């Protein structure tokens, strides 16, 4: 069995002494889409932020994180990003005062970082081909874009960094249903090309269509994990998130 | 409660010892002079302490309040012929309040660092005025300040030299420390800390951070001015060099060296700095480098001040005490 792209062991995150997340193990294989679901405040964002070594706050993080077998939990955020561990965060994903063109650029040259097989580095043109709306608005500033367009911008830039593992935190927030379908469909496409994806979503219904495996986080702990096809019928998920009436 | 009575007794003992300290350390003129200056600069520093430690903002204008106190006293006492030092003290406080009011109102809705820069500019302009304006004595300064005279009807309270000045300096220091302690326990003090640590919560609790800043500023200015008031009498001479950067750096070090919001922090810090300068000096410029370096080093490497060094020791003591207090019964329960 080939080694997973992302391997997390013993992840513990605390904010000001309060334990926010306690995860024993989680892994994502190449071409796999793993969905992380759970209620607000369950610890989903904390999870992906900690993997990226990033946060808008000041958490204390202990973890063993490996990318393609290489331990990088001691690395600062920008180094992890350059190694192919890319996060599209929740909230602000684009630079409002910079144009779309400027937003779609990397701080480094992924090819120069010794990107090996499995890291498809998107060029700006490829991103525009993927999201034609962005091309139309290429000279507009970030803050002039709609929420969905900014989300596309964030994903587009992430792809330009040649990710080995792509993590997305609630990419569907504020998006119209068609947009959500388009974004998630694009992710499925990328996964088929070999990209490993860790997707945090509140919109479980939409996520379930796209993910291979589902992980349910509740109050900072993993309570359920399994194939999406099986989990979809799990009463715990159905009860909590898909609404009281399920057919 | 027993503990607070113990604390009060402890403080009282400390106060008595501090008062007797110059005598116990030889009683020479040099020692008394150092003691008086420590008291004066500590008083000035407490004004800044309230702004930096409680309000969490940097005011660089407190040297101006200190100078205002000194200049008002000089003008009233030497040019104005006002004999009673009570009146000059009132004058110093009044002028400081007016200045602080103007600065405070102007900077009411400005961001913190703009506030700091404005106070910096006030200090620089103050320097220019003090050095050039003939009313303030220009570059020669104001001389001929009479001795401190706090006499009341029937009671002569005069101080002609540092030894005689010491009880009054000590009394002023005690009064200021008491004032700061009361402030910290007051509603305004609590409001200041809240608007510093959590402005959003403060606004939701009905506190207007801008108004709180103004009020604390108005409280702090006369404190520093009182230091200036006494300085004028101690030196018998006031000139523009009372606005030198040295005083600002000294006051800032006094506020951060021991730790934020430590009641006795400023006076201990000033004592340390002045002791080094007066008795272990390495030359004016090197002393300057040492002082500046200490200020930077404390903030960079020991942000909670020297007091934070004492905390691990205290923790060790309590841990040992707890270990000794563990009874066999308790250990049995834990191994279940």
């Amino acid at each position: 069995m080939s080694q997973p792209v992302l391997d997390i062991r013993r992840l513990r995150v605390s904010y000001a002494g309060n334990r926010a997340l306690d995860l024993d193990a989680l892994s994502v294989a190449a071409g796999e889409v793993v969905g992380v679901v759970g209620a607000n405040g369950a610890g989903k964002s904390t999870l992906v932020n900690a993997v990226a070594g990033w946060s808008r706050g000041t958490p204390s993080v202990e973890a063993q994180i490996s990318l393609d077998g290489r331990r990088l939990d001691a690395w600062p955020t920008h180094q992890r990003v350059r190694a192919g561990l890319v996060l599209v965060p929740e909230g602000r994903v684009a630079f409002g005062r910079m144009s779309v063109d400027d937003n779609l650029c990397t701080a480094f040259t992924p090819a120069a970082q010794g990107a090996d097989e499995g890291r498809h580095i998107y060029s700006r043109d490829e991103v525009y081909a993927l999201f034609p709306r962005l091309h139309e608005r290429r000279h507009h500033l970030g803050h002039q874009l709609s929420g969905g367009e900014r989300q596309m911008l964030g994903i587009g830039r992430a792809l330009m960094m040649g990710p080995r593992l792509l993590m997305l935190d609630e990419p569907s927030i504020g998006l119209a249903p068609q947009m959500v379908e388009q974004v998630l469909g694009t992710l499925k496409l990328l996964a088929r090309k070999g990209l490993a994806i860790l997707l945090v979503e509140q919109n479980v219904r939409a996520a379930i269509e796209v993910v291979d495996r589902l992980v349910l986080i509740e109050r900072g702990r993993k309570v359920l994990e399994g194939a999406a096809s099986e989990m979809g019928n799990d009463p715990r998920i159905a009860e909590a998130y898909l609404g009281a009436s399920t057919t | 409660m027993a503990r607070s009575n113990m604390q009060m007794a402890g403080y009282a003992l400390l106060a008595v010892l501090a008062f007797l300290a110059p005598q116990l350390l030889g009683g020479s003129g040099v020692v008394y002079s150092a003691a008086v200056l420590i008291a004066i600069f500590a008083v000035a520093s407490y004004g800044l302490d309230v702004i930096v430690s409680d309000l969490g903002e940097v005011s660089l204008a407190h040297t101006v309040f200190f100078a205002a106190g000194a200049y008002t006293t000089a003008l009233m006492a030497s040019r104005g012929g006002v004999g009673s030092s009570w009146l000059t003290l009132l004058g110093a406080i009044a002028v400081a309040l007016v200045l602080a009011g103007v600065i405070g109102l102007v900077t009411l809705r400005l961001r913190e660092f703009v506030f700091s820069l404005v106070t910096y500019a006030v200090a620089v302009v103050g320097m220019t005025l003090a050095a050039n304006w003939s009313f303030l004595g220009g570059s020669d300064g104001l001389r001929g300040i009479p001795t401190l005279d706090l006499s009341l009807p029937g009671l002569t309270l005069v101080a002609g030299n540092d030894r005689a000045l010491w009880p009054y300096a000590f009394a002023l220091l005690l009064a200021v420390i008491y004032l700061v302690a009361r402030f910290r326990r007051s509603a305004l003090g609590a409001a200041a800390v809240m608007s510093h640590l959590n402005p959003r919560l403060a606004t939701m609790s009905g506190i207007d951070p801008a108004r709180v800043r103004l009020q604390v500023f108005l409280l702090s200015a006369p404190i520093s001015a009182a230091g200036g008031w006494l300085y004028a009498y101690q030196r018998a001479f006031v000139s523009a060099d009372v606005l030198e950067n040295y005083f600002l750096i000294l006051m800032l070090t006094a506020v951060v060296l021991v730790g934020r919001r430590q009641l006795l922090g400023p006076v201990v810090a000033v004592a340390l700095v002045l002791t080094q300068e007066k008795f272990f000096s390495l030359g004016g410029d090197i002393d300057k480098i040492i002082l500046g370096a200490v200020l930077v080093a404390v903030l960079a490497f020991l942000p909670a001040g020297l007091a934070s060094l004492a905390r691990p020791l205290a923790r060790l003591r309590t841990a040992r005490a707890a270990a000794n207090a563990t009874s066999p019964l308790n250990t049995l329960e834990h191994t279940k």
Partner: protein
Amino acid sequence: MTILQQIINGLVLGHAYALVAIGWTLLLGVARLVNFGHGQMYMLGAFVTWWAVVKAGVPYALALPMAMAVGALVGVFMQRVMLKATFEQNLVSIMIMTLGFGYVLHGVASIVFGSTGQILETALSRRDIELGELWLTWQDAAIVVAAVVVFVGLRWLLDGSRIGRLVRMVAEDPKLAMLTGVNVRRVYYGVFAFEGAAVAFAAGMVAPRTPILTSMGFEEVIMTFVVVVLGGIGSVTGSYVAGVALGLFTALFSALVSPAYTTAAVFLVLIAVLVLRPGGLSARVAAGAH
């Protein structure tokens, strides 16, 4: 002196102010750092240039890069010491630390360079350009040219180059920039080095105009502060315009009213602006480099 002469003086002075302020503008706009040691770093730049030219016999054209190198090193050293506070955005600590640094620089300069005033003369400052009744020194002209070159160059760098893009990212949202693979720490070092080099360069260029003292620097901070606030925090173009305007105001006030109280007058103008328009004269108030 005619008004026209004063206007020429003012333009030269204005370009000098803009040049002195540019490092501070970038530091504040990109890293949100207030450097109260700016005045002493200016003083150091002036004295290193003076020492190199007058005491060490180095040609002026070489003395300037020397001063810039010293300035950049001081900047990097300061940032290294203040790194934790920078990342925590602990502005109170940063402001006080930069004040402390300034004080230390003053002490060091007093020991190394002495406390007497010195005059830095260069080949350019000794020769005048005469335009009829008006005159200015070649040094003055050089100041104007240097300021324009630096400002245009910086704008071009910020808008058009890759490094400029990174700097703008960090200026707007340092955390998000980290996720784009930017080494934010290195950018902060770079910006502080730029501040050190820029203020030293400005000092080396402007110092020949007046005698220099190791106790100087305070008024430079005020002027810089006023330029930055009037021009809009982080705005490169704004700083240029505000600098020139301030220079004209200072020259005219000094000639027509009183030279000693010029700083006080500038201060009053600043207060008036702050009271009437708390965001400064620039419509956009948000931090960021632009």
